[in-house]
């Protein structure tokens, strides 16, 4: 296991701003604090080489967890071991073995060619000039940077820049890569390209990838496993595919008909109905797909039918919206 977390808890004290003038004056003299339990009893472990999606709505405890893992914060209780190290005690030593890409903030020097930033990062990570040169050559090949490596970063397209960003975070051959929103702002084609590169990187170098993203595509295309954090609790830890089925086990059925829809079945909601077509949603926890099909065929003349799963985005939205419900138990399969 490259990362082991056991019973992690972390609370913050946040000053409470009292309402009204008298409240404000009072809070100047005596501050009141509210305890926020940012992370509650989170446990998980990650084997070497895994690509893991770590998702949750804003303010759910994601970044607190990452700060705990990287040693910026230390837990109130519970234990963390990253690459066999205690991140808080050995933050600097750990930093030499992890890499980070923060999609919204560049680590490249804007007016210099990416090659210069790579060289600088080589110095920062204590690599010799020869080692840096060797790594840059390798990464140039993997990420196909040759054509623009010597152009100032400001002249690169966003896609090219992100490729350079990811390469930059790999100069020191980290064992764990934290990717925070790597595909933000990219167009569909470039997104797919970046995902391919990350996938290849993981397959070829065996690097462990910790992906934080709100992009359903990133999660589905890259990761087999997903951990969902909500209100400080890990509400889901399992395969991406399974999450889709067990948390929101519904199908969307589009039918083309010769007359108006005639269907009344428990567990099936009619989303849209027009004279010659309809859109239904079947909740497979309440009704069998076979029953739905039989009822449809018995009462209607069907021209065409299309059954699809709920898109990942909706699954995620569903999880996020249920934030007050809390716990996996809410979505019993």
């Amino acid at each position, binding site marked *: 296991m490259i990362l082991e977390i056991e019973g992690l808890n972390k609370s*913050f004290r946040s000053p409470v701003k009292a309402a009204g003038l008298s409240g404000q004056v009072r809070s100047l003299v005596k501050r009141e604090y509210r305890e926020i339990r940012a992370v509650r009893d989170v446990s998980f472990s990650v084997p070497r080489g895994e690509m893991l999606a770590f998702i949750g709505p804003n303010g759910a405890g994601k970044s607190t967890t990452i700060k705990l893992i990287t040693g910026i*914060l230390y837990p109130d209780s519970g234990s963390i071991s990253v690459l066999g190290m205690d991140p808080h005690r050995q933050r600097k030593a750990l930093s030499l073995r992890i890499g980070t890409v923060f999609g919204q903030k560049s680590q490249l020097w804007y*007016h210099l060619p990416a090659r210069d930033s790579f060289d600088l990062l080589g110095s*920062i990570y204590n690599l010799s000039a020869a080692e840096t040169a060797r790594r840059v050559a390798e990464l140039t090949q993997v990420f196909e940077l040759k054509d623009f490596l010597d152009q100032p970063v400001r002249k690169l397209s966003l896609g090219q820049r992100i490729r350079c960003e990811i390469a930059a975070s790999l100069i020191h051959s980290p064992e764990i890569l934290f990717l925070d929103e790597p595909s933000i702002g990219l167009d569909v084609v470039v997104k797919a390209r970046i995902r391919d590169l990350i996938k290849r990187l993981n397959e070829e170098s065996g690097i462990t990838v910790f992906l934080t993203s709100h992009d359903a595509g990133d999660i589905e295309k890259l990761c087999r496993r997903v951990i969902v954090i909500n209100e400080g609790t890990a509400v889901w830890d399992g395969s991406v595919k399974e999450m889709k089925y067990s948390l929101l086990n519904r199908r969307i059925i589009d039918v083309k008909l010769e007359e108006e829809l005639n269907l009344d079945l428990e567990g099936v909601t009619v989303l849209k109905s027009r004279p010659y077509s309809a859109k239904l949603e079947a909740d497979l926890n309440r009704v069998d797909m076979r029953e739905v099909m039989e009822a449809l065929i018995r009462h209607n003349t069907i021209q065409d039918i299309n059954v699809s799963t709920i898109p990942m985005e909706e699954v995620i939205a569903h999880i996020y919206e249920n934030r007050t419900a809390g716990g996996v138990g809410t979505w019993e399969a």
Partner: protein
Amino acid sequence: MGSLRKYAAIFRYTFRDQLAYMPAFITGQIFFVVIIFVFFSLWKVIYGTKVLLAGLSLSQTLWYLTFTETVELSKCRIFQTVQNEIKDGSIAYALNRPYSYYGFQTARAMGESLVKLAPIMVLGFLSALLFVGPLPGYLGALPFGLILIIGGLLLNTLWMLNIGLLAFWTEDVTPFYWIFQKLIFILGGMFFPIDLFPDWLQGTARALPFAYSAYWPALTMVSFSREAFLTGLAGQGIYIALLTLTGAALFRGALRKVHVQGG
């Protein structure tokens, strides 16, 4: 310290990165020439028929102001960068790198400051030359003056870095910067040489840290003496050490606060 290489590299690359802004920066510094002209007109009236004021000639005073302005205008407003990184949380990513955040920002700010310094030195030289003629002993004093000017830039950088770190505690640190800047303007002798201050204030002003950002470097340039240079150098050394220690303490306090109250 092997890690010095790291900070030297950060300095070097920022320097090169910032060179791109040089043309725009120089254009922006037309303002500087105007300031020197205003100072010239003002001080000409103040001097009237007097040859010396507190031991300085009109020419020396104008050159003096050129140098204090040089330190002021070359500084990099690093407190804004630090404040922004604290507010948007991206400082967390900087903490995950094998360098000291403080050292990194210092190296970066100095890289930027030194890029600005060169054209300002030239512009200042040309404008003072134009208004009051050459400064006797300029070339001889230059190596020593430059050391103190760069020391002054480092002092200012550390001040601003520490001010930036206050963003962990307050919403906006800009007011602190304003106060600091006014202290440099007045007590640091940026707008008038400390020698013109009333007697009771002179000693204090010379000893306070602000003078080491403006007064001592400029004095060394216009009226060079070994004592002035060495006093300036020693004072800068002491205050650089003190500010670094303060910064380290602020940083530790900040991390503790993040730990208690969250990012």
